[in-house]
Structure formats: structure tokens, C-alpha cells
């Protein structure tokens, strides 16, 4: 262990914080738009550079114990709980830090172009830096509590950025929806942590940093809470947290609405970095899941189901960003399938490659929307290959990578996951995974065709995006191409030094490529025919909508999941809240008990007042009656 005070880690997280503060306070008045943009991007670049430096230091260490820690100060110490503000760099967090800072830097540069002329330009960049700071804190945290700080910090950043244009109540409530759904997930995360802490404390372990936790994982396995095995319960609860953050079933509803935010935000937060936090957390806590295989099955099944469901929905969407959003949900499903199958390294590998090509696709969509000055409906686009050539080429790379066409990145990581799932024996899950891969290829091809092929259906005058936007996209495209091969060769052994080298069976490769090809061809057939390409076979339906109209409407409306949540959860809860205030609070406690007693005493007072009739003789009679009563009481003592 390099000792606990490796300095570089704190320098990795400080620049974004400085960027946030400077842009936030001084931005509007003192910095020009250009200066603000550069400051923001520079901050993230610094983090990226420091990440690289610390990576090289990490690599110098012997393969077995590659760990760098930096304890800044004791954050909380109350009774048995001591939580240090400590950062940790090991292969897993190094990879994540690189991905986060690298992709963020590119998106920052892109945003300078995209957000040009927006009134809240500096506020936007300060929020982005704010996000990167908390993401890095999340990734580099040495104990789950600090990770939770990062966890909620990024949730807040996404809330602020989704609702960036808050004049529109639609966007504001989308932000609120994202934050609250995250909060529900976070509650699960917290509950899991609480149980973990309780189990550890019961076992006499009081430090909560990951090294000690993984060393005492068997404590959790041994203990049981309310009859259920503790490790399993912690695993599931932490996974609930992950579903909230990484938009898995049932808490994925917020991600499609999160598209209300600026597109670079969608690219950075809702594709590349934040949503992957769930996968990172599971990978980080994997020592726990090893102790509770049942929890892994839960992850596997949920991941698979989410992937399939999202892919189906993506097929029928009209809004370009909605398609990409559901695609992200689906790809995250894949990552969770990988972790569920026990291959967290494969999951992280897919996470990295996905970050590249999904960010690329989102930025491309951004430049399309920017080009068509705000138009997002696929049916109003078309033929953009003529007007936006570079964007077309870059989108094409992203399309190939996502579909899993070799040799691009998508193929390597997705194929690896399918193979791991297959080898882990979950046959049915593998089959659905394969089908989802095909569907993925289908909807991304459909997007490409609708947007770029054929001729332009919209009214706007499409124009190509400036260099400051296309250059980052180019870099990302390069990474999408080269990332797969480099990752397979270098990343996996780096993450799991001891693991045996991966051998890809030829059969598995063939099957996944076939699935991808099927998807693409189907897309060209159906979508191509739909937009009037004459020479297609009769059996091929004009479009999905025509073939199964009722099914199509169901899928287009996202299986009405939002409406179901609204009807089953939100509405009744709101009505119950209203009822608790109106009836028990105002009527029962306040009305009956408090004011009731007051009214009772007042009426008693009035009756006593009425007894004062004013007639002196009546008083005398009361006098005598009282006296006789007392006299009787006195004498009773003697005679009874």
C-alpha cells in the first residue's frame, strides 16, 4: 500500500469544484462566454491529466496490490462511527475516473458550441463542473458513505441540469421527477448501507472503508436479518439504489423525461457517466455479491428484462433523443446482466465502450437538433447526409458500434457479455439478450435511416455544426472504433489481474454478428419501404405501425408505465396526504381535541354563569343546601 496520503487524488477532484465556484459566482458579470467555457473545460482537462498521472503511478505498483489512498480529514466521528473523507484509486476507480473526466472534457468543449448564446451559459458550465466534481467523488470514494455523498450530489446536478430551462414547467417537473425517483433509489441504497453497518458493527468491525468491508464480507453472509440472509438483503437493497440511479426497471421512468435537459447534459449525465454509477457501485461491492449468489440472480434477471423492455419501446419512438434514452436504459440492462452473470469486469468494459459511442450518438443528435434549430422529431428529418456530412459519418460510426458490428467497440463488449451470460448457464437470459441485441441494431438503424437517408422532410434550413462541436465528436468516434480492441487487450487484465485470458469461441462471435446483421437488414427493409423506396418485397410490412397498430400504439406510449405509476402511486399518495391534513389534523386533533376541550369549558362556564340568577334567596338556599350536605358528611362520620 502506497501509504494513505497519495496527494494526486485530491488534485483530481479540486479543479471541477473550483470551476463550479468560479463560474457560479463570477461567471455572469465578469467572464465572457468564451472565458467561462474555457475555464469549465480546462478544469475537467486538469482532472483528466491528473487521472492519467495517477494511473501511471498505479501501474508502477505490483499487479497484486494496486491501491493508492488519500485521506484528507476525518469527516464524521460520533461514537462507533468514524467516516473519513478519503479517496481511493484502484484499477476499477482508475478506469472510471478516466472515462468520467475524459468524456466530460469532450462534452464540455462540445457544449461551448452547443450552448452558444444561451442566457445561462456560465450557470450551465458551473453546474457541469459541479456534476463532474461529485461524479469523481463518487468514483474515488474510499467508503460507501462518501460514495453516497457523490451519489446524491450527481442526483442534484442532474436535477439542476434537467430543469435548466426552468421557465418551461414541463422541464422543471421532469427535473423534479428525476430527483425524487433517484431519492427513492437512494433510500434503498441507504437502507442497504444501514444494514451493512449494523452487521459490521455487530461483528466488531467499525471502519467502513472498502478494504475492511471486503475483508469482512463473510460477516454479512453469516448474519441474518428478520429471517432473511443479511448479505442477500444488503445486495438487493444496494441494487434498488442502483436501479434508481442507473434507470433500471422499475425506477427507469425518469430517464426518458430527463431528455428535457440540454443535449450535452443528456450525453454526459444520462448516457456516459451518472447512469453508470449503479454498475460501478455493484462492481465496487462485488465482494458482497460473491457472498450472496441469489442477489446476483436478481440483478441478472432485472437487467435482462429492462434491456429487453427498453429495446422494444425504443423501436417505436419518434423523438430522436427518446430513442437514444431508451437505448441507454437497454445498454445499462446489458451491463447489469454482465454483473449478474458474475463478470463485473465485462460490465465495466461495456460501460466504457458504451460511454464512448452513446456520448457520440447523443452529441450527433445534438448537432442534428442544433442544425435543425430545435427540431427533434425523426419523421420531420431525413436526407441530412447531404446537408450535414460530417455529422452523418460520425453518427454512422456510432451506429455501427452500438449495433455490435465488429471490429468496433460495441461488438467486443456486448459479445463478451453475451458469452459470459451463456457460460454462466442462464440460457433463457442469453436468448433474450441476443434478441435485445438484434432489436438494438434495428432501432439504431431505423434512427439512421429516418434521420439521414432519403430526402429532407422538414422545413428548417439544415446547416452543419461548427468545428468546436464536430471535433470532440470525432475524437469520440475514434475511441468508439479503437476502444473495443484496446479494451479487450488491455482493460480486462488490468481490472482483474489474476483472471484467465478471455478466449472468444468462434460460434458465439458468429451468433452475435448474425443477430446484429438481422437487426440492420430488417431496419433497412421496413423503414426503407416505409419512406417510399419502391423495390422491396411485398411480404415486408410497410411499417410496424401498419402491421400491428394496437401493439404499436401500446409500445409508442411506453406501455403506459408512467400513467400506471401516476394512478397507482402518486395520485393516491397525494390524496392521502390531503386527507391526513384535512381530517385527522384539522378536524380530529385540532378540532375535536384541542378546540373541543376549549369549547367544552366555555359552555360549562356559561351554565355556571346561568346559575348566578341574581336572586339572593336562591343564593341563600344554595348556602343552606351546601351546609346541610357538609353537616351530613360530618355527622355521617360518627353515625355510619
Amino acid at each position: 500500500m502506497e501509504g494513505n496520503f497519495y496527494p494526486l487524488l485530491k488534485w483530481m477532484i479540486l479543479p471541477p469544484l473550483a470551476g463550479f465556484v468560479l463560474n457560479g459566482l463570477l461567471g455572469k458579470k465578469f467572464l465572457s462566454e468564451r472565458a467561462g467555457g474555457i475555464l469549465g473545460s480546462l478544469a475537467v482537462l486538469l482532472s483528466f491529466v491528473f487521472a492519467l498521472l495517477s494511473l501511471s503511478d498505479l501501474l508502477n505498483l505490483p499487479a497484486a496490490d494496486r491501491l493508492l489512498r488519500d485521506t484528507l480529514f476525518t469527516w464524521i466521528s460520533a461514537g462507533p462511527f468514524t467516516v473519513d473523507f478519503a479517496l481511493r484509486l484502484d484499477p476499477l476507480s482508475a478506469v472510471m475516473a478516466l472515462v468520467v473526466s475524459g468524456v466530460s472534457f469532450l462534452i464540455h468543449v462540445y457544449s461551448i458550441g452547443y450552448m452558444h448564446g444561451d442566457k445561462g451559459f456560465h450557470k450551465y458550465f458551473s453546474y457541469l463542473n459541479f456534476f463532474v466534481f461529485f461524479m469523481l467523488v463518487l468514483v474515488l470514494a474510499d467508503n460507501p458513505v462518501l460514495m453516497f455523498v457523490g451519489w446524491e450530489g450527481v442526483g442534484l446536478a442532474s436535477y439542476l441540469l434537467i430543469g435548466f430551462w426552468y421557465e418551461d414547467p414541463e422541464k422543471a417537473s421532469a427535473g423534479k421527477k428525476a430527483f425524487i425517483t433517484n431519492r427513492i433509489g437512494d433510500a434503498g441504497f441507504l437502507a442497504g448501507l444501514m444494514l451493512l453497518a449494523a452487521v459490521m458493527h455487530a461483528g466488531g468491525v467499525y471502519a467502513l472503508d472498502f478494504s475492511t468491508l471486503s475483508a469482512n464480507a463473510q460477516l454479512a453472509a453469516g448474519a441474518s436479518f428478520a429471517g432473511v440472509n443479511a448479505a442477500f438483503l444488503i445486495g438487493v437493497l444496494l441494487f434498488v439504489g442502483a436501479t434508481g440511479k442507473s434507470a433500471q426497471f422499475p425506477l427507469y421512468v425518469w430517464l426518458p423525461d430527463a431528455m428535457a435537459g440540454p443535449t450535452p447534459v443528456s450525453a454526459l449525465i444520462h448516457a456516459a457517466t451518472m447512469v453508470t454509477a449503479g454498475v460501478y457501485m455493484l462492481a465496487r461491492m462485488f465482494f458482497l455479491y460473491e457472498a450472496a449468489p441469489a442477489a446476483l440472480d436478481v440483478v441478472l434477471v432485472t437487467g435482462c428484462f429492462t434491456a429487453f423492455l427498453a429495446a422494444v419501446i425504443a423501436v417505436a419512438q419518434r423523438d430522436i433523443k427518446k430513442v437514444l434514452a431508451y437505448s441507454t436504459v437497454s445498454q445499462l440492462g446489458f451491463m447489469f446482466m454482465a454483473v449478474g452473470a458474475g463478470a463485473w469486469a465485462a460490465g465495466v468494459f461495456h460501460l466504457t465502450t458504451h460511454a464512448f459511442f452513446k456520448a457520440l450518438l447523443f452529441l450527433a443528435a445534438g448537432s442534428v437538433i442544433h442544425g435543425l434549430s430545435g427540431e427533434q422529431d425523426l419523421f420531420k428529418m431525413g436526407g441530412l447526409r447531404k446537408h450535414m456530412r460530417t455529422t452523418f459519418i460520425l453518427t454512422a460510426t456510432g451506429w455501427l458500434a452500438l449495433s455490435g458490428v465488429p471490429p468496433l467497440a460495441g461488438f467486443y463488449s456486448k459479445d463478451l457479455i453475451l458469452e459470459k451470460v451463456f457460460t454462466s448457464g442462464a440460457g433463457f437470459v442469453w436468448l433474450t439478450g441476443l434478441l435485445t441485441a438484434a432489436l438494438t441494431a434495428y432501432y439504431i438503424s431505423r434512427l439512421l435511416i429516418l434521420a439521414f437517408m432519403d430526402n429532407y422532410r422538414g422545413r428548417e434550413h439544415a446547416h452543419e455544426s461548427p468545428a468546436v462541436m464536430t471535433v470532440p465528436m470525432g475524437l469520440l468516434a475514434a475511441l468508439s472504433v479503437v476502444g473495443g480492441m484496446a479494451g479487450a487487450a488491455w482493460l480486462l487484465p488490468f481490472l482483474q489481474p489474476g483472471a484467465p485470458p478471455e478466449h472468444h469461441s468462434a460460434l458465439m462471435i458468429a451468433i452475435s454478428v448474425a443477430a446484429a446483421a438481422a437487426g440492420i437488414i430488417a431496419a433497412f427493409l421496413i423503414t426503407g419501404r416505409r419512406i417510399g423506396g419502391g423495390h422491396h418485397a411485398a411480404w415486408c410490412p410497410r411499417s410496424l405501425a401498419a402491421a400491428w397498430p394496437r401493439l404499436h400504439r401500446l409500445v409508442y406510449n411506453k406501455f403506459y408505465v408512467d400513467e400506471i405509476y401516476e394512478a397507482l402511486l402518486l395520485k393516491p399518495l397525494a390524496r392521502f396526504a390531503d386527507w391526513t391534513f384535512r381530517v385527522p389534523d384539522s378536524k380530529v386533533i385540532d378540532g375535536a381535541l384541542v378546540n373541543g376541550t376549549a369549547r367544552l369549558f366555555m359552555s360549562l362556564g356559561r351554565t355556571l354563569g346561568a346559575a348566578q340568577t341574581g336572586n339572593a334567596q336562591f343564593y341563600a338556599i344554595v348556602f343552606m343546601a351546601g351546609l346541610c350536605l357538609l353537616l351530613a358528611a360530618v355527622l355521617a362520620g360518627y353515625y355510619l
Partner: protein
Amino acid sequence: MRPLLLTAAFYLLSGAILAGAAGTVLLRRPLYCALSLLFTLLATSALYILLGAELAGLLQIIVYAGAVMALFILAIHMTGQDEPLKTPPLPRLLLMAAGAAAAGLFGLLMLAATRFFIAFVKLAPEPYSVAEQAGLIFGRYTPQFELLSLLVLAGIAGAVVAAKKKL
């Protein structure tokens, strides 16, 4: 023969007193009530003498029967309220309550008193001499006696305040 006469006289006087009291309470015209009260007071003073409290009996006639009754008669004439009042008596419920209260008081007190009164009171005993009683008044009870003077003075001033037409 004398003792028999004494006891008969006692019971005669008791009957007179009770009749007088009933008269004061029940007669309708205030003047008749006043006269009935006068009769009661005289009968009581006779009783005192019978019981040996001669000084008290005689003083009762002078002070009580004389001065106080004069005041009452004066008050009745001043207010000219000789004929019976036309106002209706108390509602039945209050009447009954009053009766019950008074009877209750009598019953309870007698209940308390009878348990121990096996003692007897000699009629026409040797009375305490006036000198002896005077010695008490100006001996042990001087403070009380002085207080009485203050009381009467206060009574006069009070009556003047109440009856004064204008300040």
C-alpha cells in the same frame, strides 16, 4: 307544687315562643309579623328569667323588644308597605327546597345534639348576680365589649351612609 308549676310554665313558654315564631314567618302583613316577633321576644325573655338568666331576660325586653322592634315598626311605616305584597311567592320547587333545607338543618343539629343531652337544667335556679356578670364584662371580655362599641358606631355611620339622600 311550685316545681310542677315551673315545668308547666316552661312548656307553656316554649309553646308561646314557637307560635310567635310561626306567626312571624307565616303571617301575610308585615305589621302583624312585627307584632308576632314582639310577642316571641317577650316570651323568650320570660324563658331567660325562668332559666335564671335574669339580667339577659330584662335586657332583652329593654334593648331587643323595645328599641329593635321600634326600629321595625318605624321602617314599616316609613316605607308605607303595610298591605301584603302582591308578588307571587317563590316557585314551588324553591319553596320545597327551602323547607327541606331548614328542616334538614334542624334534623341534623338535633341528631348531633341529642346523643349527649342526658343533662338536666334546673328551672328558676339561683341566678348569677349582676355584679358577677358585670365583673366578667369589664374583666375578661373588655376587648369584646370595646369592640361592641366600635360595632355600634360603625352601624350608625353605615345607616347614615345608606339612608342619606344627597352627599
